[in-house]
């Protein structure tokens, strides 16, 4: 892959910008003891490190799904140069190209070898019977599905679990060696400490969660190469692939929205609380007005307008992916507009308290400029509020995406998202027999992410706001 076939979508750029900001903040925080201490608390809590491992799995998939390019076609042209397809795929797509390409005709149940609906099949001798046809890809390697299916699934599962365990073992040994070198004790001593949980950071929890995730991951990877692990949807697309692709959408909505609204919320909130007077009045008026419009309706109105704009200017978009991407970005912005007011109000209150604090008064008396007071004294003292609200908002936004997509004012219908999967599952539940796998897949993936995010955010909040620790 070289550079000129790379496609940088708006959201990709912002995601990597966010990553850079996060890393920069991490480096900054690691040098300040008062910022390092709460993060140490997070890492040392069992729930904190366990959920962090789960979240990392999601983030890695999301990031690898955020590098887009035009894939080269198989055959070079006459001059021997590589031609690029007009299609845009991501790095993640390329890694799981098997899942993407193996499309069936229509619905099939998880791990099935036959289609979900009966069809007329022509036998070699010319007669037609009505039966469930074999799948093109799912379990196609089996000679006699009725007999071999169970054994094959068992064998593949065992192989996958075994691979996962081996991988876990390798990774934990690497970690142990690293810890041994750092602590200077013997390997056995470190290993025993880790296993009985006597280390400061609960490595045993981290390893257990990592092991569980890896086993599940390898198991599903093993089965997904031969079967459709979570079945196929109406047009025969692999549901497991769709769920994995939806991770990026969920993460983007959860993080980009915050990124978009953060500058405005922080700046305006602090300004309102610090300057008071007419500045405060104007800012308060702005956010009360925005807040009083019901969020869903504002989003609906804005998305409707965007749809009109897009249909009027259809020629400005090079591809469906770009169009869907712009809509996603717009959705993040409008979600940000509806959700920045809470943080802004909190910051205003905090800034109002801080401006009366002695050291700020002293700085004012010394004639320090407003800008310096805000950036030196006020901003660092409200950072923890910003961080807590960012983390708390994340899971709420992921859940909101599902609801909005259900109402058709969420992400583009062509985009993979859990909301779109649930939306389509609505009609499938009325079928007989029930097509439950799309819904179940979306729910499992979403639930795992939101639950980890919720638990993680609780730990972060406890770490940064010690007053709450006693009650929670």
């Amino acid at each position, binding site marked *: 892959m070289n550079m000129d076939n790379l496609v940088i979508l708006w959201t990709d750029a912002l995601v990597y910008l966010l990553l850079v900001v996060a890393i920069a903040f991490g480096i900054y925080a690691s040098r300040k003891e008062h910022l390092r201490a709460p993060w140490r608390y997070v890492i040392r809590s069992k729930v904190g490190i366990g959920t962090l491992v789960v979240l990392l799995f999601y983030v890695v998939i999301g990031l690898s799904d955020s590098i887009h390019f035009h894939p080269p076609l198989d055959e070079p042209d006459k001059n021997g140069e590589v031609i690029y397809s007009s299609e845009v795929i991501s790095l993640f797509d390329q890694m799981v190209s098997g899942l993407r390409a193996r499309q069936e005709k229509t619905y099939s149940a998880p791990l099935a070898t036959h289609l979900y609906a009966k069809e007329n099949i022509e036998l070699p001798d010319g007669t037609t019977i009505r039966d469930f046809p074999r799948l093109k890809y799912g379990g196609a390697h089996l000679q006699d599905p009725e007999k071999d299916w169970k054994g094959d699934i068992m064998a593949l599962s065992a192989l996958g679990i075994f691979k996962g365990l081996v991988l876990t073992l390798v990774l934990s040994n690497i970690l142990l060696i690293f810890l041994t070198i750092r602590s200077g004790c013997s390997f056995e001593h470190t290993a025993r400490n880790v296993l009985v949980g006597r280390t400061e950071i609960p490595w045993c929890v981290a390893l257990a969660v990592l092991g569980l995730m890896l086993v599940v991951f390898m198991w599903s990877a093993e089965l997904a190469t031969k079967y459709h692990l979570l079945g196929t949807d109406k047009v025969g697309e692999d549901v497991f692939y769709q769920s994995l692709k939806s991770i990026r959408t969920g993460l983007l909505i959860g993080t980009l929205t915050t990124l978009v609204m953060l500058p405005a919320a922080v700046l305006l909130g602090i300004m309102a609380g610090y300057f008071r007077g007419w500045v405060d009045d104007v800012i308060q008026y702005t956010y009360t007005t925005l807040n009083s*419009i019901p969020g869903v309706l504002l989003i609906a109105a804005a998305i*409707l307008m965007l749809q009109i704009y897009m249909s009027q200017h259809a020629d400005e978009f090079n591809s469906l992916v770009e169009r869907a991407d712009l809509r996603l970005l717009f959705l993040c912005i409008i979600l940000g507009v509806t959700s920045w007011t809470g943080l802004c109000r909190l910051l205003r209150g905090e800034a109002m308290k801080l401006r009366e604090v002695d050291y700020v008064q002293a700085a004012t008396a010394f004639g320090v400029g407003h800008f310096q007071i805000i950036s030196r004294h006020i901003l660092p003292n409200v950072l923890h509020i910003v961080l807590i609200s960012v983390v708390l908002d994340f899971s709420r936004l992921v859940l909101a995406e599902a609801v909005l997509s259900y109402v058709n004012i969420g992400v583009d219908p062509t985009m993979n998202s859990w909301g779109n999967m649930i939306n389509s599952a609505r009609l499938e539940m009325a079928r007989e027999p029930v097509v439950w796998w799309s819904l179940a897949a979306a729910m499992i993936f979403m639930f795992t992410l939101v639950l980890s995010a*919720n638990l993680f955010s609780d730990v972060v909040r406890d770490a940064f706001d010690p007053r709450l620790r006693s009650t929670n």
Partner: protein
Amino acid sequence: MMAYIIRRVLYAIPILIGVNVLTFMLFFVVNSPDDMARMHLGQKRVNQAVIENWKQERGYNRPLLYNSEAEGVGSITDTVFFQKSVKLFQFDFGSSDSGRDIGYDISQRMWPSLAIAIPVLMVGLLVNISYALLIAFFRATYIDLWSVVLCVVMMSISGLFYIIGGQYLVSKLLHLVPISGYDTGLGAWKFLVLPVIIGVIGSIGAGTRWYRTLFLEEINKDYVRTARAKGLSERVVLFRHVLKNAMIPILTGVVVVLPLLFMGSLITESFFGIPGLGSYTIDAIQRQDFAIVRSMVFLGSVLYILGLLLTDISYTLVDPRVRLS
């Protein structure tokens, strides 16, 4: 008190004007009425005459802000802004893009919305407060720990799942109540039971956790210790002292949402086919009926501001420490 209320009502006026200008910009300036017409009539085979006709029928053919052709006051009143946006202040919603009277529709559809929203709120409050009190009574035990875990788990499940799962289990497998629909009069109860139960279950996670925090905050205060020191039993402490004081934030939290109950729940109503304002809004969004969406935005803002006003007043009623200013 009266002066305070009047001042607050006056304060609401600029906010409503702001909302109005904002929605006007969103609906008429970002996209011209011509764009809307084209969207409605479809992209193909649309000529200017058809568009003009469409605009004429719905009254979008006036100038946006200033009518230079009309005489006197007419130059201000005979505009889209005045006809469509300013008239909202008199709760004159006009007619929808498909020609129905929006005000009449709203007055009809309000009741089914309330029939769901009020029981969900009331039963939800009862269940959440009782459960939170139970947790507070058994605080720092395994009951507490596992209840919090349960709450977080329930919070992490999408509300859509409760609805789809509940409909499937109760209506399709067990055939206890109809899947969706509505009936006038008392016959509606069997259509309302399931949405109400699902609404309550969906609110348990976040609600109980929030109330638990409130109760535990109160329990750690000095007056509770004094009450215990006097020799009061834990039950009396909890119900007489803690519950009473924790009711202040609970009550004000409820009051702020009271007016918004009229708007109904978008998702629940559309899933259960209940002809309330929520499903009215959703239908309008999906049919891209801008007149209805605009009216609902305005109505929602009015109700929200009303909620804020009621909250402030209720604060002063239940908590004598709060002074009006």
